[in-house]
């Protein structure tokens, strides 16, 4: 595997981005059709179709793109599950998400309506949950696992790499928003992008984001060190977003603008991985 994405991965990422982009959902009201559009287009099964030759590196590319959208879908874990297991068409179509036990509940990190679930480090389960809150908080599922397929350490390593790529996508979205804001927002008679302190915050956000992306790629190459990569990479992705919030000033910490959804999402991904330091 190379650090560079293959053509298939780049194409998939840009198609998925286009679909998510036109999805017109919001964190508060995600579009429940989004997953079926992706799934109908066949984007959920590219990793299980062996002719495509899709590598983990390509899945990272799709994962990064999907992190940009706060109304996320089970595409990342479905692509991974398709790579790991022999799934039937129904399972691929409904989508797969990993789940974690929290006390008596089983919770999942993605908005999902009638998905199959890979149970934390437990297995694939069929479920018909109704997700309580999308994206930013884990969604409690009503139905417990019916079958078990244990995720190996190697699976977990790949999951870490892919989730880290999602976190980089979160940073991408916040950096884009911060650049746009710095161009629009005026203080002291000029757009704030004119201030070197703001410009250096943007530069540092970029540096941290790129380093987080390198950590994701490295994690994909070194599953045995993936926990260390995740620790470093998630912190870098969060740093990048924190800088973006600072650039936004007062509106950065309003619920309405919603930059916290990205931070929350990263914290949830870490929590699903169980990589508490």
């Amino acid at each position, binding site marked *: 595997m190379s650090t560079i994405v293959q053509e298939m991965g780049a194409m998939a990422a840009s198609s998925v981005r286009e679909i998510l982009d036109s999805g017109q959902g919001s964190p508060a009201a995600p579009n429940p059709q989004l997953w079926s559009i992706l799934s109908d287009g066949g984007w959920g099964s590219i990793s299980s179709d062996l002719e495509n030759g899709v590598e983990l590196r390509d899945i990272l590319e799709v994962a990064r793109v999907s992190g940009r959208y706060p109304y996320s879908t089970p595409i990342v874990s479905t692509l991974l599950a398709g790579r790991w297991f022999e799934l039937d068409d129904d399972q691929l179509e409904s989508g797969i998400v990993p789940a974690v036990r929290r006390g008596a509940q089983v919770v999942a990190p993605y908005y999902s309506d009638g998905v199959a679930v890979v149970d934390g480090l437990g297995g694939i389960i069929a479920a018909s949950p109704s997700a309580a809150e999308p994206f930013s908080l884990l969604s409690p599922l009503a139905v417990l696992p019916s079958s078990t397929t244990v995720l190996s350490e190697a699976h977990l390593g790949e999951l870490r790499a892919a989730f880290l790529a999602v976190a980089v996508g979160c940073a991408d979205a916040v950096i884009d928003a911060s650049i746009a804001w710095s161009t629009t927002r005026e203080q002291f008679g000029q757009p704030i992008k004119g201030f070197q302190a703001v410009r250096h915050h943007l530069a540092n956000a970029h540096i941290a984001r790129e380093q987080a992306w390198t950590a994701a790629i490295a994690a994909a190459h070194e599953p045995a060190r993936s926990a260390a990569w995740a620790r470093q990479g998630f912190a870098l992705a969060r740093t990048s977003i924190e800088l973006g919030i600072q650039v936004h000033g007062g509106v950065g910490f309003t619920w309405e603008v919603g930059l916290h959804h990205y931070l929350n999402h990263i914290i949830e991904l870490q929590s699903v991985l169980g990589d*508490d330091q």
Partner: protein
Amino acid sequence: MSITRFDEPAAAKFREDVSSWVHEALPTKWRTDRASLTPDEVQQAQREWDEALHAGGYAGLAWPAEYGGRGFGPIEELIYYEESSKANAPDGFGRIGRVLAGPTIIVAGTEAQKGKYLPRILDASEIWCQGFSEPGAGSDLAAVRTTAQKVAGGYVVNGQKTWTSFAQYSKRCLMLAKSSTELRRHHNLSFLLLDMEQEGVDVRPIRQISGEEEFSEVFFTNVFVADEDLVGPEHEGWGVAMTVLSNERGTTEAATRLVEATAQIDLLNRCCARHEGLDGPRLRDRCELLRWQILRATEEKAADLDWFTAGSILKVQWSELIQDSTRLGVDSGCPEHRDYWRHHYLASKAMSIYSGTNEIQRNIITDRVLKVAR
């Protein structure tokens, strides 16, 4: 004569007095059952606390005696803030009145304004809010666009303020508004005392990323302010506001934050980040440094030394300390305190922004403390 050094016996005595008073004066439900209070009960406790402060003589701690205050200095003020923060006293609705409106009126108000407003600030029968920031005037506070148009007998105010604490409970607002479209920057604003209980005042809470609603937006549509409620000369409100703000940015806010930081860092070292041996001890050292930085700044203020330098350093110091602490808390992933850390981590993001962004603080240090001309 107020206390000038923390090592005076009088300081220890005063601390004892404050501490025992605070613990007695705390509203009962607040003391015994805080976690389970309803929003209404919390508000009730805040009102009771305002009354207790007045009854106990703590409302006008640093106000001159002639206006009903105790005439104390920065040391007593700090001791009060330390002790009430440690006891986790409620945030009374009267804070803006006691800390900002009152001192401003005492320094720059007319005799009539003093007579009319000060007693009601002290007994918290009238709650105040502060109308400085606007959507387009954040770091650049002088860019106020809310207008105050001169009419017979007063001004008509139109515009929008934001980041306003206590707005929904306030009878009055101390505000900056643009009274001239012709005069130059810093000399085109007037400082007004506005009655919030009028038609045309619309308060809308702002939800923060932590989920809390500590601030509001306030919209003003043709709201009247009488000539008698102008503070300082017309169009020279900027100078008045600067007096207020140099009071705001300082040691007492830092003392409150120190208590917050101490609790968080204790939790890290006791539980969540205990096994790491990573940043916990270093955070504790930084916390101790903040404590001494506050003591030093307060004694310098009491000794009438140049203390302007202190506020900006303290602001940067406590905000970065709490941000680093909550970051470690989130990373530690202690299951028991997961929600605690996530909440405080998100809430801490605002700390490097409000009360003057940390970038503005650094500008202030280079401009006004180091005096490096641009």
